[in-house]
């Protein structure tokens, strides 16, 4: 089965575009994961600080 070529750009260009799109998707997933981890670390640090202050 041939790969669809909606932009009529040729096989090589279509493959390059798909790879670029894939890398953007991976970068977005990595960005979300990064923000999630940073939030956990910052929240954890602030929570520990609050516990120290109240005890």
């Amino acid at each position: 089965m041939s790969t669809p070529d909606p932009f009529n750009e040729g096989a090589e260009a279509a493959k390059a575009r798909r790879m670029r799109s894939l890398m953007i998707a991976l970068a977005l997933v990595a960005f979300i994961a990064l923000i999630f981890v940073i939030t956990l670390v910052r929240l954890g640090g602030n929570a520990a600080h609050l516990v120290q202050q109240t005890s």
Partner: protein
Amino acid sequence: MTEASLSEFATARATPARWGDYFVLLKPRVMSLVVFTGLTGLIATDHPMNPIIAAVAVLCIAVGAGASGALNMAFDGDIDAVMRRTMNRPVAAGRIARGDAMIFGVILSAFAVMLMGLAVNYLAAGLLLFTIVFYAVIYTMWLKRSTPQNIVIGGLAGALPPAIGWAAATGQTPLNAWLMVAIIFMWTPPHFWALALNSGEDYAKAGVPMMPVVKGAKSTRLQILLYSLILVPLAIAPVFTHLGHILYAAVSFVGGAVFLLLAIRLWRSRAGEAPTAGPDGLYSVKPGAREARDLFAYSILYLTLLFAALLIEHGLGLAMSLR
């Protein structure tokens, strides 16, 4: 530069951009040196830091450096297209449009600075923003095309990462942080002028007023020696400010002596006076320019060893304190 090469740069779109071309836009080799010096600045503080936040700080420095590289390539596509060393870069070769590279650089800059500010601290974010703007606007858009002092003043952008790393770890930038900045700042002219002596014709062809093009090879060789005479004692100074210890002292004394010997050998040579046509490649020796190539190659090793010594000394100290 020729009209033909300009029009070729403006219209060429020979092959579609691959994701790897966008990675090349980040100047990975420069980025690795920036990450290395930034990480050294961060570790040299001896300040315990959450490892995840430290990794985020280094990531922001890396992405900021890459963004600067992308903005530089977007603006300098016309120059890069003329020089043999850079003509294969994605914008110069027409694989990525200038506007695309510009947008890529701006988005990455915003990401790096905002993440540094939100996750680490505002001083580090401010220094990172200053570094990107200084490199992309002051150096690339203005100094590079207008003065032979371009890489002297512009070198500040490449010198700042240790201060960013230090600020990320402590929220401050004391004398030792600026000492590391000063070492890279003074290292930059001998490093780039030695490269320019080995490939001067390319700079002249591209209309870039590098020192050998404007003042000639003899004056450049003298200035390299003068900057080296300032650099070597400056690189030894951390021994006396308690930033560097025994390993650093050994590297800075022995490495500095070798640097000075190579700078003197270059000063006494006629490097850069013969036409530089010869094999391509960053480390290729052009006819009559071996002394310049040698100092250029050694300067990279020298800076790497200096910062590696600091990284080892302080990294080990930090690891011992955490046990």
